[in-house]
């Protein structure tokens, strides 16, 4: 295949992908937008074209902002393909797709990865018990299905999403037994020095303060300074109790559902599969693909925009997606550098404003040590059931990094392909060997990135 099929292929229809697609298509680029989900929105605007809850006050107006982005997709000549997953990328940017049980290859002139974020894996004893799920999962159930957890419900963790989902569930009439805030108290002091930057985004600061006030007014018990979080099984083998410590006091509460959250991290499966250059972000405690200010990665022609290039939130992702599309249009000689600069002014301003608050949020809500470097008994690789203790032992015995550990203990070799343990395995081994994370590295990610049937693979070889 020598000819290009399209000018631009975009992977992911969240805020970055939707904004980029609308911008590129308006400029006349032959654009294909690929997305795993059945409808546009990504996770933040999940089910935005058909939100399940009747009461729009539950999810709030920031969620329904996504409607304008989804609407923009309809007004263009865009080739939007929902229900399509990308299972391999080649160095020449050729994509291998799977949709409706069929495999296909597309070669674009430019490629934009806009696959966003995933919730940071939060290993702690008992986190594999049925009844424990992420706050993001609960939000998806709310947006797509209007399903909410029954009592007794406990939320535990740290970060803005924890407060947001608590407020949304409260608005939906759900009783919350307690919010266990695991933010280490010293983080409040550490975050103070970043406050001047945060003041550049007063609307977001005000939203956070508003959520806290809403939860306080609702009388929801918020227990701060929580540590040693542990989920315990009830008689039926699913979650029964949540145990934790506040200061010197150990407490146990009954629970049917425990929602956990420790922030979000870039989804690097695709960018890692191409061996793109990645930087370790010390403040966000995660990897992100290296990009220039327009989102172009270490592989010329391949762009990464949105939270997948570093966590900055939905409005930043929308702006970043637009910037990437404008730069791609300039590279393909559809617009001049001057036109690009003119059309990018507002998006650039938004991006800078949204990014200004991140150091404050990242310092405040950085996960407590027990979630980054869990106790020995904790399962780190959920798929292959490998504990933190086993990984520490391998590191002590001379295993130099995650890829070697994989061969010894199978961590990262299960169905999730390291998505749930990759960060923890790297951090545990770096800590045990006393080397920086940047040196210990990350799993080598190989295609197929997403599972596909042998029949599909055989079809694609024809």
């Amino acid at each position, binding site marked *: 295949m020598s000819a290009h099929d399209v000018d631009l292929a975009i992977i992911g229809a969240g805020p970055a992908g939707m904004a980029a697609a609308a911008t590129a298509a308006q400029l006349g680029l032959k654009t294909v937008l690929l997305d795993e989900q059945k409808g546009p929105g990504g996770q933040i605007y999940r089910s935005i074209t058909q939100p399940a809850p009747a009461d729009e006050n539950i999810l709030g107006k920031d969620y329904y902002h996504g409607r304008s982005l989804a609407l923009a997709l309809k007004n263009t000549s865009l080739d939007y393909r929902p229900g399509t997953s990308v299972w391999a990328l080649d160095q020449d940017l050729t994509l291998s797709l799977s949709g409706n049980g069929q495999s296909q290859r597309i070669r674009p002139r430019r490629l934009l990865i806009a696959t966003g974020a995933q*919730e940071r894996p939060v290993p702690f004893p008992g986190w594999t018990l049925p009844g424990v*799920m*992420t706050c993001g999962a609960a939000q998806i159930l709310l947006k797509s299905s209007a399903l909410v957890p029954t009592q007794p419900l406990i939320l535990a963790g740290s970060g803005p999403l924890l407060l947001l989902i608590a407020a949304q569930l409260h608005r939906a009439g759900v009783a919350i037994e307690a919010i266990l805030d695991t933010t280490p108290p010293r983080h409040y002091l550490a975050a103070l020095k970043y406050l001047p930057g945060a003041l550049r985004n007063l609307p977001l600061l005000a939203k956070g303060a508003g959520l806290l006030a809403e939860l306080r007014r609702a009388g929801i018990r918020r227990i701060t300074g929580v540590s040693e979080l542990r989920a315990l099984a009830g008689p039926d083998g699913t979650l029964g109790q949540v145990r934790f410590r506040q200061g010197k006091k150990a407490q146990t509460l009954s629970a049917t559902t425990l929602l956990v959250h420790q922030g979000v991290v870039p989804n690097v499966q695709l960018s890692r599969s191409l061996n793109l250059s990645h930087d370790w972000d010390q403040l966000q405690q995660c990897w992100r693909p290296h990009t220039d200010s327009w989102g172009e990665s270490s592989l010329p022609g391949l762009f990464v925009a949105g939270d997948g290039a570093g966590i900055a939130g939905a409005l930043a992702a929308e702006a970043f997606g637009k910037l990437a599309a404008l730069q791609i249009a300039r590279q393909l000689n559809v617009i001049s550098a001057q036109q690009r600069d003119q059309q990018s002014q507002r998006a650039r301003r938004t991006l800078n404003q949204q990014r200004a608050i991140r150091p404050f949020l990242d310092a405040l809500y950085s996960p407590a040590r027990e979630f980054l470097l869990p106790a020995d008994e904790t399962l780190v690789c959920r798929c292959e059931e490998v504990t933190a203790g086993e990984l520490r032992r391998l590191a002590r015995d001379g295993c130099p990094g995650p890829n070697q550990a994989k061969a010894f203990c199978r961590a990262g070799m299960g169905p999730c392909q390291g998505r749930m343990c990759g960060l923890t395995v790297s951090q545990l081994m770096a800590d045990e060997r006393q080397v920086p994370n940047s040196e210990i590295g990350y799993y080598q990610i190989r295609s197929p990135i997403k599972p596909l049937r042998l029949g599909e693979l055989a079809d694609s070889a024809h």
Partner: protein
Amino acid sequence: MPGASKFERLACASNDWIQVMVEGQPVKVRPGDSAAAALLAAGQSAARTSAVSGDPRAPYCLMGICFECLLEIDGVPNVQGCMVQVADGMNIRRQQGAPVLNDSLAAGVPA
């Protein structure tokens, strides 16, 4: 174990319902539900058992990352339940440990 669901349905924006089978039992679900959501709504707290220890596992992330909601959907094993939208008459079963590659599946693979 089937039982009272640990999730309840709020008032919905539309009144569309379809029927699927969850572990052989008919269940009314919404067209926007994923198969994993249908499972939870039907009172099944676990989606599968671990292929390593046999311990029960349940949908954890619901966004295609964790692979804990692997289900057998319309006879096809190892499907990510959160990535499949329900369809009328869909047959959803829990995945028990590692799936066995049977003859009918193997027959589709060219030599």
